[in-house]
């Protein structure tokens, strides 16, 4: 009988609905988690796979990245044979960000570490042509590379 009475009291007084309301009210008072993205820049971890950067100066035209790419978005043109003996830098290097899936599989096999992801993530353009990068237009920032390679493993992440 006390059980039934208890059930009746619970049925009439809505304790579980009240505790639900308490939960929502708790978060009503707490600070919000929304990030104000365009105003406040996100702090990205160093391993973020953003836009691909290629250091043309150190590239040796081995085409490992081209072979590893599952989406075939990289195309490397080695220089002519006679030039290649002295200067291994590619004659032309294309990356189509239209197809790139940011999987990072081109970064692993690169023997010189010339290709790597940057932390740039705002890749939207008004024109599809702008997504095809060649040797001249490929963005490259040596500072980022050094930053990433030198500091990658011993900088503490922001704690989520």
């Amino acid at each position: 009988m006390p059980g039934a009475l208890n059930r009746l009291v619970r049925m009439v007084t809505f304790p579980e609905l009240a505790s639900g309301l308490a939960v929502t009210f708790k978060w009503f008072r707490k600070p919000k988690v929304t990030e104000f993205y365009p105003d406040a820049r996100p702090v990205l971890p160093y391993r973020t796979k953003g836009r691909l950067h290629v250091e043309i100066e150190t590239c040796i035209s081995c085409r490992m990245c081209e072979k590893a790419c599952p989406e075939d978005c990289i195309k490397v043109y080695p220089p002519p044979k006679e030039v290649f003996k002295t200067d291994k830098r590619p004659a032309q290097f294309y990356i189509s960000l239209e197809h790139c899936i940011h999987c990072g599989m081109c970064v692993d096999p690169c023997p010189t570490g010339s290709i790597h992801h940057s932390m740039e993530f705002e890749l939207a353009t008004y024109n599809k042509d702008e997504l095809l990068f060649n040797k001249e237009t490929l963005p490259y920032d040596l500072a980022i590379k050094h930053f990433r390679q030198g500091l990658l493993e011993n900088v503490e992440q922001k704690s989520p």
Partner: protein
Amino acid sequence: MDWNSPFMLTVGLPLLKIVILLGVVAFCVAYTVWLERRLLGFFQSRVGPNRVGPAGLIQPIADGLKLILKEDIIPTNARPFLFRIAPIFAVVPAFAGFAIVAFAPPAGPRASFLISDANIGILYLLAITSLGVFGIVLGGWASGSKYPLFGSLRSASQMLSYEVPLTFSVLSVILMAGSFRLDDIIQAQGKLPFLVPLILAFGVYVISAVAETNRAPFDLPEAESELVGGFHTEYSGMRFAFYFLAEYANVVLVCCVATSLFLGGYKIPFLPYETLLAAHPWTVSLIGLAVFAVKAVAFLYFYIWIRATFPRYRYDQLLKIGWKVLLPISLLNLLLVAGIKLAMLR
């Protein structure tokens, strides 16, 4: 201009009041939407709309502008005439209901804060709001599509079911106050808001009002996860905005009515309004208006809080609650109140 001329008294002044009230209500409705979105955001650990204007305050205007500029689509299968006029059926009763709400104590014989001091006030309100269902039913049917049809069928049965307990809970208030006039009801709560003696009726009123205005957890007619948009699935642009306006006007109306019926309206308990009113009519009037607004917003906050917390009932469960739980409770409550009233009369 002669404010005492017969023309001004019978036509001019009421017309002016109506225009002002419509403007104020439309403004309140727009900002109810804003308030709801902001508060929902806060409840959900996010911030809500905050990009347009400071704290997103211009958001309702931006939304309204967008809706006005949108293309007005009439589906092929729709019945064009009904499809066009159905939103009007929804909006008119929602706004007409405000005619009898007393927002503040009158500052003077011709400066009352209500449009019509009808002696059937609350009955008029019930009658008018019961017409709101037509906009939904006709709109859903005229869309010529299955989801809106389902939405309007659900809505019709829901509104019919919940009108009964709602009316009964309001009746108990009428019994307590002994009048249909909203102002009399507010006067009767000078010492104690009806919330205290009529807590049962208040509970029934809150639940059925939430159901009557199709809001969560009873928002089945427009349950977006089942019926996409319910009765207004096929509507776009201005006609959709009309439905939107009607829904939120109903919400505001319910808040105002709850404030008047249960929370004491513009009264603060034990504050002798009458004597103060004679001394400083406008000050007291405006204070009364502020008190009313605070109470209404508090009720609105609760409304939104409920929406932020609870899941949605299923259609059949909803009807079951309406008929099998709320109706007996409200009847019982009515009997109780009638008995107490009778005992007091003896």
